[in-house]
């Protein structure tokens, strides 16, 4: 009863506060609209790429003709040698060229048969256009991975992975923006706790027969409710602006939900460590904004130096983006994202436990 009353009160405090609600829902939606307006529609960017097939096997040829050439965002030209491709790249006629090394087909074949394989592609690109090269790496990566994993045309794989040949920027950005929205839950979760602490409302509640567990559950449940609403709104929003949902939506939802729980936990920790809203807000933003960038909300973390990637992957958000992109764009199943999934569960449990311990200690002091 007490938990429900506290939960209801916290929800009302949130949806009746236009500023908080605007921040919570409006900010990421605005980003979606902006990116949607820029990158969606029929005007899919067409990137000219060159291919040098040094393997020259049926499989490498199939990779060029059946995979790369069918990506609408690519305009593929084959080259006999790298010098000619390099010249075109230097002249700006190409955005990048790929070298399919000798042995590529064999390695792909090994992979199909479940044997150990080392599939590599060499890619040289124009680094002056970061966003384009970033997209190209992502597209080539996605296409190569899809091609290498699927047994075509010989047999039907037991767990086929969808080849998404129309990966556009919205598809790529959608999961990142949703995770960014979930990162905003950090200040959103910290704010009501700190505000109640600062304005004496928590003290007032502590003079009632409310137990610490009631508080923690009351605050957490209201934030869980907000998280669920946020995920639904963002997924619908992303879909509305053109993000293709290829994989299991429920699995993606679960990934996002676990990410939200991590944010609530971090928010609780920040709220417990802060004495006022003025302390909590900068701390929360200082944590969430750099993480949004490092984790790949705006661009792929593949572009970053390894030590930065290591930092990013110590937190749940990079895992969430990887897993949700895998599921939503490439149609990956639970098996493919199991590591990220377990990492998120572990992080959520640990951070929630820390949050609860600190929160209880805070209430006692």
């Amino acid at each position: 009863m007490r938990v429900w009353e506290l939960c209801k009160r916290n929800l009302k405090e949130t949806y009746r506060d236009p500023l908080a609600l605007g921040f919570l829902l409006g900010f990421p939606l605005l980003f979606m609209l902006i990116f949607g307006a820029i990158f969606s529609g029929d005007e899919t960017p067409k990137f000219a790429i060159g291919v040098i097939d040094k393997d020259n096997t049926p499989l490498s040829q199939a990779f060029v003709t059946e995979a790369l050439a069918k990506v609408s965002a690519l305009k593929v030209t084959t080259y006999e040698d790298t010098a000619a491709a390099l010249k075109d790249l230097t002249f700006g006629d190409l955005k990048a060229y790929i070298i399919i090394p000798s042995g590529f087909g064999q390695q792909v074949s090994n992979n199909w048969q479940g044997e150990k394989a080392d599939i590599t592609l060499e890619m040289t690109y124009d680094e002056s256009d970061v966003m384009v090269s970033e997209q190209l790496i992502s597209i080539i990566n996605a296409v190569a991975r899809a091609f290498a994993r699927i047994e075509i045309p010989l047999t039907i794989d037991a767990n086929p992975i969808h080849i998404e040949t129309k990966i556009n920027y919205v598809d790529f950005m959608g999961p990142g923006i949703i995770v960014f929205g979930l990162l905003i839950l950090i200040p959103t979760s910290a704010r009501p706790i700190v505000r109640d602490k600062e304005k004496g409302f928590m003290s007032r509640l502590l003079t009632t027969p409310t137990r610490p567990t009631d508080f923690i559950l009351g605050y957490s449940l209201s934030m869980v409710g907000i998280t669920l609403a946020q995920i639904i709104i963002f997924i619908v929003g992303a879909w509305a602006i053109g993000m293709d949902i290829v994989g299991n939506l429920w699995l993606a939802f679960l990934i996002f939900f676990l990410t939200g729980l991590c944010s609530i936990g971090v928010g609780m920790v920040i709220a417990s460590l802060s004495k006022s809203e003025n302390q909590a807000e900068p701390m929360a933003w200082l944590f969430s904004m750099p993480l949004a960038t490092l984790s790949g909300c705006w661009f792929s973390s593949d572009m970053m130096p390894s030590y930065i990637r290591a930092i990013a992957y110590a937190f749940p958000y990079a895992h969430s983006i990887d897993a949700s992109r895998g599921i939503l764009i490439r149609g990956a199943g639970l098996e493919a994202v199991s590591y990220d999934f377990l990492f998120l569960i572990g992080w959520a449990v640990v951070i929630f436990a820390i949050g609860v311990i600190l929160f209880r200690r805070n209430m006692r002091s």
Partner: protein
Amino acid sequence: MTSRRAKQAKTGDLAIQTFNLTKTFNGLVAVDGIELNIKRGELFALLGPNGAGKTTTINILCCLLKPSQGTAHIMGYDILKQPFKVKEIIGVAPQETAISEHLNTQENMSLIGRIHGINAKELKSRSQQLLETMGLESRAKDQVRKFSGGMKRRLNIMMALIHNPGVLFLDEPTLGLDPQARRAIWEYITQLKRKKTILLTTHYMDEADFLADRIGIMDEGKIVALGTSQELKARMLEKNTMIVSARNLTQQVIDEMRSRYAEVSVSGETMLITDSRLGFRTIVDRLHSAGATVRSAHIKEPTLEDVFLHLTGKELRE
């Protein structure tokens, strides 16, 4: 005999008892061995300047803080051993107007009521009664962030009363309000007298003077004086002050008066004479004899401010 009656028999007519109540923060003594006995139905005011330890005392009694030493009983329940029993029977209006800004008046009261396990029917009737008493009936459904300071203070008290507690703690209930709003709150508190045991903290002497049955003057964590307003002021009657308005207050006049009375100070044409025995006629005659022309003279009634000044050597700061 019901358990309530048994408890009452055990504690006598005392609602709040403190036993060497002490609180230190990093070596700083905020509350210093307070011993209080507050009767059921009594309105007791803790009067003192900011930082005297009033709020810390209330916070300990409300089980928000644990004392460093000593303990207290609220209606016979020990604050250390039975904090949740204490929390069930007290109502607290904190110094900050601790209300939920985006909830309306009714919702704020309901939240506290439901936490105390009051059913919907009872809650409705109690909130209606409080809304009428406190004059917020027409604002029951309004979000409280739009309220004035006085209205928020009233709601603060209503939230403390919604579960009909036996003991009410009011921490600076009129802090920051204009005189009219303060007077309105005083009227509401007056209506509660005898029905509840009330412990009120304030740094306004007139508030303590107007409302309290007994006053404990607090300074640097200690109760330096305790009694009714009249009892406290009576201590000052040992020394009275006469305020004289006169012309020709020359140095000769001043010296003459200083040779006869304990304290004499002059500002312009006003002379303040303080002594244990002040004869109105005698003073006027002596001033005339010394060459001054007296225009008016009156004995100043002692105030709680004078009592505080007398006891602590400090003025009661706002």
